């Protein structure tokens, strides 16, 4: 047999790391790295971006407070991911379909659900899912939203709905699910307008990104499905918005799916149910990310421009938190669910056996 290998696999492997730098408009020192894109935003736009991030941070802080008081159910903290979450969702329109995961509750609210509904969802009440938004409820099964998004995207295309896309979120861990690939592949095969957003926050609970996959970037996972993809600085709301908007514009022009990987960081725990990041992260690993806080860099730009002050921000936070307190009071006043109603909502028309069960429970419930 010949000794000279016909192919240099090591070179091919090394070549996989030749990827573009993540897209950025504003770096962590609040320096503008893309003047042209920066200039495309008005002062009002910039203030609006800041307000949304302040809102999401306040929502997180207040929800953690409620959680400590035992007033929440399942909650996945969002602190640190404001630019990634608000930047992408602000580029969407009301007619777009959202398929969120459990850390994407702020986007769901932004897309039309109420904070009260979000709290009810967290507590585990069915009325939390009866929002008016064009959205699935936050998905618990990681990867499931990606396959369903392909179907929603194809549905939009078949309905000939103009200026409409589906957008869906998963995390770095989520890209390891077979369903993530199946969803991308189906959307690609049908050229369905689906925006796949991977919020790479570095950890799937405790498992670091490096242990999820040998792929140099998660954005590359779209390539195999024939989908254009890009990495973006997930701590830069201007970049997240600009990329998401460009993706949406591209898709509504009649093109197929796009994938965006946002490089972000979860400042806190995976969930409020006892996860302790100290078990798997060191201060040295965390500190550089805390310094990239998306609020810090935009706050500096706005303050320098005379568009923002600490006082104004404090006032806003107070206002937002007051509205969240109203929302949880509203959630407190929602009547408890009933077993008879659980049976009734299982099928459109209850089966004969279920009718008997319903009667039995209704008799109990009326006592």
């Amino acid at each position, binding site marked *: 047999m010949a000794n000279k290998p016909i192919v240099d696999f090591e070179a091919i492997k090394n070549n996989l790391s030749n990827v573009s730098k993540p897209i950025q408009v504003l770096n962590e020192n609040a320096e503008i790295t893309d003047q042209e894109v920066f200039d495309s935003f008005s002062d009002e736009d910039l203030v609006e971006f800041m307000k949304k991030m302040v809102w999401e941070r306040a929502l997180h802080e207040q929800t953690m407070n409620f959680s400590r008081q035992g007033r929440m159910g399942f909650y996945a903290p969002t602190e640190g991911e404001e630019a990634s979450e608000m930047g992408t969702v602000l580029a969407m329109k009301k007619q777009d*379909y959202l398929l969120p995961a459990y850390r994407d509750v702020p986007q769901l609210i932004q897309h039309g659900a109420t904070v009260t509904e979000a709290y009810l969802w967290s507590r585990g009440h*069915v*009325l939390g*899912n*009866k929002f008016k938004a064009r959205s*699935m*409820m936050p998905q618990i*099964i990681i990867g*499931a939203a*990606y*396959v*369903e*998004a*392909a*179907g*929603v*995207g*194809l*549905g*939009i295309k*078949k*309905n000939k709905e103009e200026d409409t896309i*589906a957008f869906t979120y998963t995390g770095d861990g989520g890209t390891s699910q*077979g*369903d993530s690939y*199946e*969803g991308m*592949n*189906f959307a690609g*095969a049908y050229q369905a307008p689906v925006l796949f957003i991977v919020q790479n926050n570095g950890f799937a609970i405790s498992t670091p990104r490096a242990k999820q996959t040998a792929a140099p970037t998660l954005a590359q996972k779209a390539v195999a499905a024939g989908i254009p993809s890009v990495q973006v600085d997930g701590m830069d709301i201007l970049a997240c918005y600009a990329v998401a908007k460009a993706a949406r514009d591209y898709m509504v022009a009649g093109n197929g799916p796009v994938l965006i990987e946002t490089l972000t960081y979860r400042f806190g725990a995976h969930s409020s149910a006892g996860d302790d990041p100290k078990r798997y992260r060191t201060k040295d690993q965390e500190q550089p990310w805390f310094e990239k806080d998306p609020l810090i860099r935009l706050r500096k730009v706005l303050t320098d421009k005379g568009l923002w002050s600490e006082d104004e921000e404090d006032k806003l936070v107070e206002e937002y938190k007051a509205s969240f307190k109203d929302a949880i009071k509203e959630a407190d006043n929602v009547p408890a669910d009933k077993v008879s*109603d*659980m049976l009734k*909502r*299982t*099928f*459109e028309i209850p*089966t*004969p*056996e*279920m009718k008997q069960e319903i009667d039995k429970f209704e008799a109990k419930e009326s006592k």
Partner: protein
Amino acid sequence: MAKKTYIQAVTDALDIVLEDDPKTLIFGEDVGKNGGVFRTTQGLQEKYGEDRVFDTPLAESGIMGLATGLGLTGWRPIPEIQFMGFSFEAVDQIAGQLARMRFRFDGLKNAPVTIRTPYGGGTHTAEMHADNLENFFTGVPGLRVVMPSNPYDAKGLLISSVENNDPVLFMENLKLYRSMKDDIPDGKYTVPLDKANVIREGNDITIVAYGAEVNEALKVADSLAEKNISVEVIDLRTVSPIDTETIFKSIEKTHKVVIVQEAQKMAGVGAQVASAIAEGAILSLDAPVGRVAAPNSVYPFALGEDIWIPRAKEIEEKVNEILNY
């Protein structure tokens, strides 16, 4: 009226629902140009176009996710899982997602999906093709499971399944696909999704069966009729829900029952029927409940099927045992 095979009856039903409702869609592996590996969708892409009848990439979870998403956007999907054994790949999408859509949204949204899939032993397929997985899927709340035993029912039940707004798992029996022909009406008719069929009336003993075992039960009824034994045969038609009322009524008359299934005995349809009888009709019985089911082993390889699946001989033995109790 025309003589049609089980396959042709399925095609007939699909043709009707495609014609009737412009929102219906058929998709799956090889269902388009090829007309499905069993030709159940033969000619439908040609007639209704690629927008309505189309091939999918080879991925069952993807197919079911597509169905759920299309359902949420106003379509009425009829996906095909090429063989039931492949549905393991799609269990989250079927049981975790689709079946609970109405429940999760409190009826605000739903996904009216009918999943068609061939199942059942006796045709010596490759491994993991023919498994009887109804035991598994009848345990999924929110999912209806339909198992027609003949071409007439296949057509009527399939039309009902598609028109129903709940998700339905429609199981088509491989062994019956080409081995049975019935005179079935042209045009549209429906068969209800919650009513068992007393397919043979009798007075001495009741056999409860479904799918391919209904025909085996009828053979037993014929054979015993020669000995002046009158057997009533109930075809469940749907295994979720199970029509216990029809079963109880029959038992009140015959006082004896044998429950027959092709699937393994453990925790399944037969066990559910026996438990319902124990709860609701035990005082009508004057003998123990008889059960005929496959052994609780892993589903056999092709050459093992014929000694593993219970058929008429085993049913007749059990019926005689219960009659002589």
